């Protein structure tokens, strides 16, 4: 019989099972003049979108990114598979396509230039330029060879101490503006208006976001008849769960989805299930430094549309 072990630091019996007493967090008085800057209005649902809407694809995808120096890199991307064409009937029309995409990225703290050009001449361009410390210009454009199919949008963002505002000008005489303000350290509310010149349509929307360290809840209402709510709970460092609800008053469409997001050391797995009967999963597995293997699956049981894709991403 050896000597008895030292008693556990928190006492014996049941006391050993209880967690140690946490220090009471000192109640911080809220300083309403010193609130944090809110997230940009278009990113108000970003946690939910990251978890519930991965880029699902069908077919083979191969991406190669070559960095020439810290700021400048070139990318080559090959895709062979089917793309869905929107159709009026309930059947989905899949068109087999393949394309090669060449891209160049220049990333500077003050200037970001990203361009991607496809074999059929389509150009995707993104420019982000910090004109001053608080004012940012963003340009987003898709230029095609077919006339009247190109799209472009200019955004001017102004970041204040605890608010952000944005003004947008787009093609087809689109003008929009939005504003978001921090109300408390956890709650921010914003609104947006837009005006579509060619169709003489205008709309107004309101959004609110409540976030703590462990959860994010957002709600958005728009005069176009859309109500969107989302909730993301960070269960642990590696696991998040998300839920999303969307109601479209014009088409009387209701969709709700639940998903999970596991961020592990070697992989990232996202899965979701929808109220339309769609089950989807997206896996990114890190095989080696800089080499990622990607698997994507989307099963649409009511429409019997099954999409499976795989790919490899090489480079940062």
């Amino acid at each position, binding site marked *: 019989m050896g000597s008895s072990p030292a008693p556990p630091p928190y006492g014996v019996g049941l006391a050993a099972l209880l967690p140690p007493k946490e220090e009471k967090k000192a109640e911080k008085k809220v300083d309403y003049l010193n609130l944090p800057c809110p997230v940009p209005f278009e990113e108000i649902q970003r946690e939910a979108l990251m978890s519930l809407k991965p880029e699902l694809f069908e077919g083979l995808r191969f991406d190669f990114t070559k960095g020439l120096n810290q700021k400048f890199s070139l990318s080559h991307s090959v895709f062979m598979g089917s793309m869905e064409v929107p159709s009026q009937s309930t059947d989905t029309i899949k068109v087999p396509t393949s394309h090669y995409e060449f891209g160049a990225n220049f990333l500077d703290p003050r200037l970001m230039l990203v361009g991607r050009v496809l074999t059929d001449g389509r150009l995707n*361009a993104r420019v982000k330029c910090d004109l001053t410390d608080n004012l940012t210009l963003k340009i987003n454009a898709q230029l095609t060879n077919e006339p009247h199919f190109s799209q472009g949008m200019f955004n001017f963002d102004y970041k204040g101490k605890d608010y952000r505002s944005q003004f947008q000008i787009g093609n087809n005489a689109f003008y929009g503006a939005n504003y978001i303000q921090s109300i408390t350290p956890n709650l921010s509310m914003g609104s947006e208006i837009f005006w579509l010149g060619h169709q003489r349509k205008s709309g107004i929307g309101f959004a609110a976001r409540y976030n703590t360290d462990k959860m994010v809840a957002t709600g958005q209402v728009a005069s176009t008849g859309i109500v969107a709510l989302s909730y993301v709970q960070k269960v642990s460092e590696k696991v998040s769960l998300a839920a999303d609800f969307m109601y479209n008053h014009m088409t009387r469409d209701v969709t709700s989805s639940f998903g999970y997001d596991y961020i592990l050391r070697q992989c990232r797995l996202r899965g979701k299930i929808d109220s339309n009967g769609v089950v989807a999963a997206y896996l990114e597995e890190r095989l080696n430094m800089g080499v990622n293997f990607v698997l994507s699956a989307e099963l649409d049981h009511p429409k019997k549309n099954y999409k499976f894709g795989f790919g490899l991403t090489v480079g940062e």
Partner: protein
Amino acid sequence: MASKASLKGKGKVAKSGRGGSAAAPDERTAVKCVKVWSTWAMKKAKVAAQYGFIPLIIVVGMNSDPKPSLYQLLSPI
């Protein structure tokens, strides 16, 4: 269709508002001129952007520090 109807409406309002003003036709052709030239400029700008954006990024990138070499740009490694 809706846009044509609204343009007709605009024309009527303009005519009834101006009454017998002699400068009305000149103003309308001036506005038309500006529209035609701005459409021409946007078309040229779109073609210039489509051909020149990627070369612009490459030129800006090749001139950044540390300067990469032409071999690094063209080789597949």
